[in-house]
């Protein structure tokens, strides 16, 4: 049963994708998309019944993944050729050469047969994220793309093609997180790269083409590194299986795979493709570039984490992640473009996940797991809110979101929920940061970077929140007009985010801790990290829940107690103009009307992209080089 469900989750979306591509009318296409979303989400939720079942799944055929691999390499070369993209063409050819060696090099006999797919708690959780969050974004995209077709550039590709890649992507991502054999993994890895390339280039404007070009160069480079790591492992006789790496502590292939993971997760210095990808229609940003595809990188690091625990490699990986967390948070402080803030925040959070997984202690692993789940849900939500806001106000600038509550209260409230979930207890992201700081205590540099990064994240979220919570007196709410597919998926994700805040602790106790116990063998239980993990049981949760109840109570009481007659206009150091539409207009010298406005601080001279990148990118390159340094020496 599990095997069939997994097959449905991988092949189902791809087949539906072909159906959508060939759909003759819009109605058929929308219907098929809804069915694909429903089937994928339902299958994933049904699959979670087998949560604790840990096991490998054997697929007798080796021909199929190799065929898929060659198909992907051919597609990369074709793209490189037709779009005159020399780097991609060269890297495609290199991949083909590596593929040929891999094809014919004899494998050393393995002590145990290695499964092609592995189904455990980690892959189950990622399948759930991809399928459920992905399905909701897919539904949202139906509404979004109709509006985009009206207002977007005329050069854009057909909606059929767009939904084909968006739907098929879900299958490829599910395959990626389940695959254990590198033949399958590398095929799905390239498939996500290709989906991302076509979706970023969807608008076919010069900027979109430029961004898509950059994305494919960096991601094909990552794929090439992945294949190099695979090649080294085959030549060393470590074989084609990921879990075998962990048992054998094969550090050299692991280091290559980690660098591939850094490109996919857009860690510094590879961040530029994710920023460019923000030009794509928002469902693409929400699905690929915040909640799923970028998770492929951090997933790979988490998958291999138990294998490199306790080595110097672990320390350098944690340091690279922590550095990205700090630098990307600093970059986010300097941005007033909302989508870019979200993008940098995504890069920062992925960096934090890599830090936690890189430390490879039970507590760090648990923190990484917690972050990966909550970040995916919350960031998916924030991106689709951002897309809705952008379509309504025609701007991505945070300063233009002043008074958003009047124009679109529904979206604004849901966006506020998302931002609070990124920032406040009892939501998972903050819990993750907390555990991250405590588990990094034995790596002072990593800890310092995480602390500085955390302080910077508060700055940009507080600025943004402060902008959108602004409401005037005698508030007149005008409910925005959204198609049900958009408002429905926003509401579902919003409610899921709220609920997840209260589920964070049970999830940690009942799901993540048992997994950490399985992955980290008994021998290491004497170390400090285990003690800290076990100590989390003594935390009292009742104060948090008691306070949540108190908060809701005081909210209701204050809202009822406030009297309309006691509402006043703000103090502006001058007489407020009584009949002005703007409550912040006052009489200045010579009775002139003057508007009092205050922009937030952005410090673009310190935190601007050029300034930060100038020192952050070389540092990141140095960190990646030292990743290889510690395994070579």
């Amino acid at each position, binding site marked *: 049963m599990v095997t069939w469900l997994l097959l449905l989750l991988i092949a189902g979306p791809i087949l539906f994708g072909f159906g959508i591509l060939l759909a003759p009318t819009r109605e058929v296409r929308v219907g098929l998309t809804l069915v694909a979303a429903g089937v994928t989400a339902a299958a994933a939720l049904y699959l979670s019944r087998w949560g604790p079942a840990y096991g490998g799944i054997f697929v007798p055929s080796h021909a199929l993944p190799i065929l898929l691999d060659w198909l992907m390499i051919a597609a990369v070369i074709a793209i490189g050729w037709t779009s005159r993209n020399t780097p991609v063409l060269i890297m495609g050819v290199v991949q083909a050469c590596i593929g040929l060696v891999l094809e014919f090099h004899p494998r050393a006999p393995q002590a145990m047969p290695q499964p092609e797919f592995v189904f455990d708690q980690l892959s189950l959780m990622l399948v759930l994220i991809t399928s459920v969050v992905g399905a909701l974004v897919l539904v949202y995209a139906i509404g979004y793309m109709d509006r985009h077709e009206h207002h977007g550039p005329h050069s854009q590709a057909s909606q059929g093609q767009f939904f084909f890649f968006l739907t098929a992507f879900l299958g490829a991502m599910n395959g990626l997180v389940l695959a254990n054999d590198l033949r399958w993994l590398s095929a799905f890895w390239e498939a996500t790269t290709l989906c991302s390339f076509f979706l970023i280039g969807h608008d076919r404007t010069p900027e979109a083409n430029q961004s898509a070009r950059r994305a494919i160069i960096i991601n094909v480079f990552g794929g090439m590194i992945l294949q190099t790591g695979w090649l080294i492992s085959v030549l060393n006789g470590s074989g084609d299986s990921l879990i075998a790496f962990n048992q054998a502590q094969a550090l050299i292939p692991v280091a290559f795979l980690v660098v591939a993971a850094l490109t996919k997760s857009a860690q510094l210095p590879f961040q530029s493709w994710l920023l460019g990808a923000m030009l794509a229609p928002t469902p693409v940003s929400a699905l690929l570039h915040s909640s799923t595809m970028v998770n492929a990188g951090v997933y790979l690091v988490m998958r291999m984490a138990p294998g490199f625990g306790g080595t110097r490699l672990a320390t350098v990986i944690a340091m690279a992640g922590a550095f990205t967390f700090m630098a990307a948070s600093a970059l986010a402080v300097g941005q007033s473009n909302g989508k870019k803030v979200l993008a940098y925040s995504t890069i920062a959070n992925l960096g934090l996940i890599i830090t936690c997984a890189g430390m490879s202690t039970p507590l760090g692993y648990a923190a990484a797991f917690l972050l990966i789940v909550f970040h995916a849900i919350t960031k998916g939500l924030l991106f689709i809110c951002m897309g809705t806001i952008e379509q309504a106000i025609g701007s991505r600038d945070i300063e233009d979101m002043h008074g958003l509550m009047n124009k679109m209260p529904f979206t604004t409230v849901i966006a506020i929920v998302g931002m609070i979930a990124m920032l406040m207890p009892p939501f998972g992201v903050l819990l993750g940061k907390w555990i991250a700081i405590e588990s990094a205590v034995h790596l002072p540099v990593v800890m310092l970077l995480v602390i500085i990064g955390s302080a910077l994240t*508060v700055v940009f979220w507080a600025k943004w929140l402060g902008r959108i919570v602004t409401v*005037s007196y005698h508030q007149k709410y005008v409910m925005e007009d959204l198609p049900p597919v958009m408002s429905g998926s926003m509401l579902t994700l919003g409610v899921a985010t709220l609920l997840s805040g209260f589920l964070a602790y049970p999830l940690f106790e009942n799901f993540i801790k048992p997994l950490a116990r399985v992955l980290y063998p008994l021998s290491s239980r004497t170390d400090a990290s285990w003690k800290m993990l076990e100590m989390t049981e003594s935390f009292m949760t009742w*104060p948090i829940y008691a306070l949540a109840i108190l908060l809701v109570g005081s909210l209701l009481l204050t809202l009822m107690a406030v009297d309309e007659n006691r509402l006043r206009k703000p103090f502006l150091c001058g007489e407020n103009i009584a009949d002005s539409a703007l409550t912040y207009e006052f009489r200045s010298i010579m009775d002139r009307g003057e508007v009092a406005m205050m922009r937030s601080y952005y410090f673009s001279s310190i935190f601007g992209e050029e300034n930060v990148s100038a020192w952050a990118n070389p540092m990141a390159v140095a960190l990646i080089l030292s990743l290889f340094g510690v395994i070579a020496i």
Partner: protein
Amino acid sequence: MSTMNQLLIALFAVVLAPAVGALLQGIDRRINARMQSRVGPPLLQPVYDVLKLLGKEGVILNRTQVLYAWIHLAFLMLATVLLVLGQDMIMALLVVAVSTIALILGGMCVRSPYSRIGSSREIMQMLSYEPILVLLVIGIFMTNGSFMARDITLAGKPLLLTLPLIFLAFLLVTAIKLKKSPFDLATSHHGHQEIVKGITIEYAGPYLAILEVAHWYETALVFLVLAAFWATNWVVGIALAIIAFVIEILFDNLCARLTYQWMLVHMWTVGLGLSVTNLIWLYWK
């Protein structure tokens, strides 16, 4: 500890903390007055102020404003309870941070440029002191081997002896937290600043009273942390905290308000530098 006991202690702390805070502010005002050759108000003046505020008409700009004031107070109460019950100190820090964010949003949810300036400065203050506070907790961990507040005396010797530089850095944080010059940027106790009540400018009557009570909690928390630097003997600890308070008041009278850029740069160089240096000692031990 049974749940019943914990609840009783929590209740006791929630009542006692503002009383201590109010008394400290009363003493603060008296000492301040003496430094300026004035007699100063009665010791319980902060309480009288709040009682008077409670009797006034609650004038506001919008409904959400009141909510943020409540959240600010509620999370400070939670932090007090967490610390008194000996819970994780990083968690307590994050809870205090949330309460400050609520205050910031309270200043930003209205269309007043002055309260928005106050809020923006409060964000910069958070950015300045938050890393130092986390490093303080890390320093305590390096001394005691535990993040729990109940293990504060585990090492058997006063924290001041292992964390002298972090104590100095914490004095800087104390100045920000108690709204003392040169760091009274977001809101001030003095009438001569360029923006006096910045972040709280649009709060009045009972809603301002909520913020005043919250500040009592904050004052008590700061006092508790200062005293914890000599937790092996609480009498010495309290004496230490009182000395620190007097130093803060002295500097409040000596300095003028400086800009937030100056604060940010100096907190990140001097404050953070002191903390990191202290931590290096501990890691090398």
